[in-house]
């Protein structure tokens, strides 16, 4: 098997990877795209295995280690993929980012130890200057990805007592100067390594990068995790590309760049949806989890009603738009929601869903949660597509969402001014289900709740939806 053939097979695998992303442009082509991805990956692995057998003169004793690693990792991965709950997807994704980061660091260490094994140089020769720089970049991006993702994972799961794993941002005086010093020290060690190719600066550099991964993620609040997860997604891609550079492997560079740009685009979309600049999110200190109650505001009267009243209103409507928020997922109410939509459909009511880009805890999370409840995707609409329709909507049902429907975003001077919102306030009637009057992540009062046409239904989303279904059955 010649190296030219290997490279050409890698090219085919790279095209499969592009096809995998291309397929995701529509739900009907997405599964075929995923199959392309699997074929590409299988091709890449088998080609490499063949190359190893050839390079080791058909002895291939080393393949034992490869197969062992594949078996262990593959089993763990398959089990996780099968068992993970859809609400826990952000944690799984953060976990997988950390795997990539750590793997990149391990490979870089192996390359520094024995560059000749990778065909970069002949045995005993020093690494070329360019490869040292690439190794340095691959290692520090990988290390930051690893430790940053571990922190993100902790913050997302929210069940660990450890302070760094809690949603509330960790801030202290001199935080940004500290990060700058660590960054410069790491850069210095990196340059030292590229000049000397010795272990000491390499190890210090990697250790500093692990620390930086922690210090840059801890000041970011739990509510901003969609941006962080997208950003780490991007980093994991750049780490893979960095390893591709140091191994002179175009396939790794292509796959890494695809992932890197994908993560960058997702970060941009998330920031845009929250109307915040990327740097504002990264510098952190905003977005405390749980939301603070706007205590200073005087208690204003709201109109509240029962689930029965709400069910009656929806049954008599022609069009209903449902705005699901993360609160819905927390109370595992997606199936009850589907039941409600089904009942309304039977009564001739047109039911649609409106999804804000930050409705879940990662990009597109809410769509997956609704799909899991077997809600057809053609009833689910993105913000831009459904906003013009709110005017003609009889009833909007807001479930566990707050900031994304806050009309304050239209008022100059408001802290969330300019944030794109779902224009639920344009509808004829609005029903809002919330647990209490506590404000959302932004800590703002929501004018929508006090409007004349709004009826609040307090209680757990699942319980309320089940009551609505019962009421509809009785009608």
């Amino acid at each position, binding site marked *: 098997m010649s190296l030219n053939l290997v490279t050409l097979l890698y090219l085919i695998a790279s095209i499969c990877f592009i096809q995998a*992303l291309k397929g*995701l*442009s529509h*739900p009907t082509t*997405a599964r075929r795209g*995923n199959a392309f*991805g*699997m074929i590409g990956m299988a091709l*890449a*692995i088998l080609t*490499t*295995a063949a190359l190893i057998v050839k390079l080791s003169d058909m002895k291939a004793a080393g393949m034992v*280690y490869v197969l062992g*690693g594949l078996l*262990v*990792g593959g089993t*763990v991965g*398959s089990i996780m*993929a*099968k068992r993970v709950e859809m609400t826990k*997807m952000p944690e*799984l994704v953060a976990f*997988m980012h950390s795997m*990539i980061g*750590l*793997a990149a660091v391990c*490979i870089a*260490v*192996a390359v520094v*130890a*024995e560059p000749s094994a*990778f065909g970069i140089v002949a045995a005993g020769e020093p690494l070329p200057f360019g*490869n040292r720089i690439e190794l340095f970049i691959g290692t520090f991006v990988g290390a930051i990805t690893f430790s940053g993702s571990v922190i993100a994972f902790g913050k997302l799961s929210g069940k660990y007592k450890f302070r760094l794993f809690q949603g509330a941002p960790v801030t202290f005086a001199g935080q940004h100067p500290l990060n700058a010093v660590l960054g410069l020290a790491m850069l210095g060690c990196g340059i030292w390594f590229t000049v000397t190719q010795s272990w000491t600066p390499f190890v210090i550099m990697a250790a500093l990068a692990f620390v930086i991964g922690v210090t840059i993620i801890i000041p970011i609040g739990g509510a901003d995790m969609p941006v962080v997860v997208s950003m780490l997604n991007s980093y*994991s*891609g750049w780490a*893979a*590309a960095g*390893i591709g550079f140091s191994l002179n*492997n*175009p396939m*790794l560079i292509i*796959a*890494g*760049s*695809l*992932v*890197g*740009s*994908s993560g960058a*685009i997702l970060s941009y*979309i998330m920031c845009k949806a929250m109307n915040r600049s990327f740097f504002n999110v990264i510098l952190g200190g905003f977005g405390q989890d749980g939301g603070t109650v706007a205590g200073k505001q005087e208690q204003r009267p709201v109109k509240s009603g029962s689930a029965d009243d709400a069910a009656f209103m929806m049954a008599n409507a022609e069009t209903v738009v449902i705005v699901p928020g993360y609160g819905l997922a927390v109370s595992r109410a997606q199936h009850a929601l589907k039941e409600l939509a089904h009942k*309304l459909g039977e009564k001739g*009511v*047109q*039911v649609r869903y409106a999804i804000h880009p930050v409705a*879940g805890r990662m990009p*597109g999370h809410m*769509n997956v949660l609704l799909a899991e409840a*077997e809600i057809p995707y053609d*009833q689910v609409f993105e913000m831009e597509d459904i906003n013009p329709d709110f005017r003609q909507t009889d009833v909007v049902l807001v479930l566990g969402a707050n900031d994304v429907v806050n009309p304050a975003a239209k008022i100059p001077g408001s802290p969330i001014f300019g944030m794109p919102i779902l224009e639920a306030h344009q509808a004829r009637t609005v029903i809002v289900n919330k647990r209490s009057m506590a404000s959302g992540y932004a800590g703002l009062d929501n004018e929508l709740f006090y409007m004349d046409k709004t009826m609040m239904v307090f209680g757990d989303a699942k319980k309320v939806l089940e009551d609505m279904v019962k009421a509809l059955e009785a009608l």
Partner: protein
Amino acid sequence: MELVSHTVTNLIIFVLAIYVGFHVVWNVTPALHTPLMAVTNALSAVIIVGAMLAAALTEGNLAKWMGTAAVALAAVNVFGGFLVTRRMLEMFKKKEKSAPAEGAKH
């Protein structure tokens, strides 16, 4: 004539791939952004190729065990990433007509 260095060739591939990535990813429907993230996890696990070389072809203990660990870590993503993406995409499959389309007018 001197040869173009590897680094420059790699840089060309890198820039072109980013260009392709931007165009392809902007066309991904927002509804599938979570599967996109899961599948990109699987794709960046292609560094398993480097890990395999490290595990199989190196001789020293350090490099060998680092390589083996990297194979295992990347394999978690290769299998986990593609399988969880497939699981999610199955959910987006159009349901059979047994469940009457809700929201449709009578």
